[in-house]
């Protein structure tokens, strides 16, 4: 079974597994960005506070 057919087997409601992985990666990245800002804020508070 090649990669293409594997994707088509995992299709649910028109969204392929590849798209789901991209979405999950995007969500994690945005949460990571937000988390980095929180850590930076904590560092500033710790250094100056």
């Amino acid at each position, binding site marked *: 079974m090649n990669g293409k057919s594997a994707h088509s087997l995992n299709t649910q409601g028109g969204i392929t597994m590849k798209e789901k992985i991209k979405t999950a990666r995007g*969500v994690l990245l*945005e949460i990571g960005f937000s988390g980095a800002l929180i850590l930076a804020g904590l560092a*500033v508070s710790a250094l*100056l*506070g």
Partner: protein
Amino acid sequence: MLDKPVNRLRPICYYTGLVVLVLNALQILPIITSVAYAEWPIVLAFAASLSIAVIVAAGLMLLGTKERFIKLSFGEGMVVAAGSWFLCMLLSALPYYFSGNYLSYLDTCFDVMSGLTTTGLTLIQDLDHVSNGINMWRHLLTFVGGQGMVVLALTFLTKGQGGTYRMYVGEAKDEKLFPNAVTTARRIWQISLIYLAIGTVALTISALVAGLPLDRAFLHGLWTYMSAWSTGGFAPMSQNILYYHSTLLELVTVVFFVIGSFNFALHHAALSGNTRELRKNIETVTFTVTLTITVLLCTLGLMKSGVYPDAMAMFRKGFYQLISGHTTTGFMTIYAKQFYYEWGDIALFAITIAMMFGGSASSTAGGFKGIRTGILFTALKGEVRRMVLPESRVKEQKYHHIRDIVLTDSIVKSAALIVILYIATFTIGTLAGLLAGYPLSMAAFESASATGNVGLSIGITTASMPAFLKIVYILVMWLARLEFLSVFALISYVIRKAAQVCRKKPYSL
């Protein structure tokens, strides 16, 4: 196009009615909530309000049903956007009014406009004992307002219907994620619903850890998520986020309101596999820079005032309020009066500036928006280079937003115009606060909060504040959320229509 109002009024009525109908149909959700908790007077309040809204919306739609395929002009699209926001404010306030939780109808209109514009200032009475149904409606309004109620209505349209993009632009969202406005609107809702699931679970767990029973934890998690994602600022308890006394819940809210303040084009890019966009985009870069500057300034100010004795208190009070203000969320972990009596002028100045900068364009956030701050800074940098460097070494200025864009004079002019209008509106709001007898720092803070659609309060926004100040804040929130032009188009349209009626009067008599 606006020169033929007799023919052109009907599609405007149709689309306005559609937006009103779609928004008010959501009253079904608070009705279900109230039924589940046996809040029967509230069920009746919603049933009466929904009936009135449906009658008004159906009347408007019937008036223009034959003309609904006429393509709207940009001016007419803006009239639909601004008009439906105003009409929705009047009609969506009815459940509040019938519930008896407000002192006047003006107060209910204030809260609806505050919710829809994702501001978060509130005049509700005894919030800690408000029914679950009313709380559901408050948070739904802010959730839908963040995405845009026109955006919501567009998801129910077919792709061929005329003028949909013009209505979309009228609601201050000019990003086309897809060539078609209807598909773009559906993608915006898809992104919001993905985060709705993740955010509600995360905040429900946080509320459970904070000690709430399961059903309350779920409702508080759902409502807090709706407010956080929409950068709204409403909370189910009068002490806002301070009520929970939970570091975990505070951190989770920061994650979601920071993400909520991002541009939907950025979400679309990141969730479609373009992971580099997050660090290259002018808005995230500008946000990081302005946040760093204002956090440093605020922390130095708080150090000077000596109000928070340790790093954790500084983080949970200083940083939290600052980032909440910068993303235009308005969640608070301190009491309103503490800003004025404890923070000191430097920290207050920092947070006022942060509220003005705001989040990203085409997001749920308010303020100038990062893209405009970034554009103006890039233009300034270009001008300085032009003055300092020889002509041969001066390159054309570019900025990155989804793709590299050449900075033209018209882009700079457009950004500067909106920033000037924000500053003018902020000045009017501050002046109104001064006229009401508040000191300058308080008046400026509350005005920045209303203009930036933030929701942090220094203590001015209470049911006892003068009626004229409530009206000024309603107008300020409405103007700023729609970024002025749609409201100006509506006012211009009404004046022209009235002038035409006046001119025709002698003949009709």
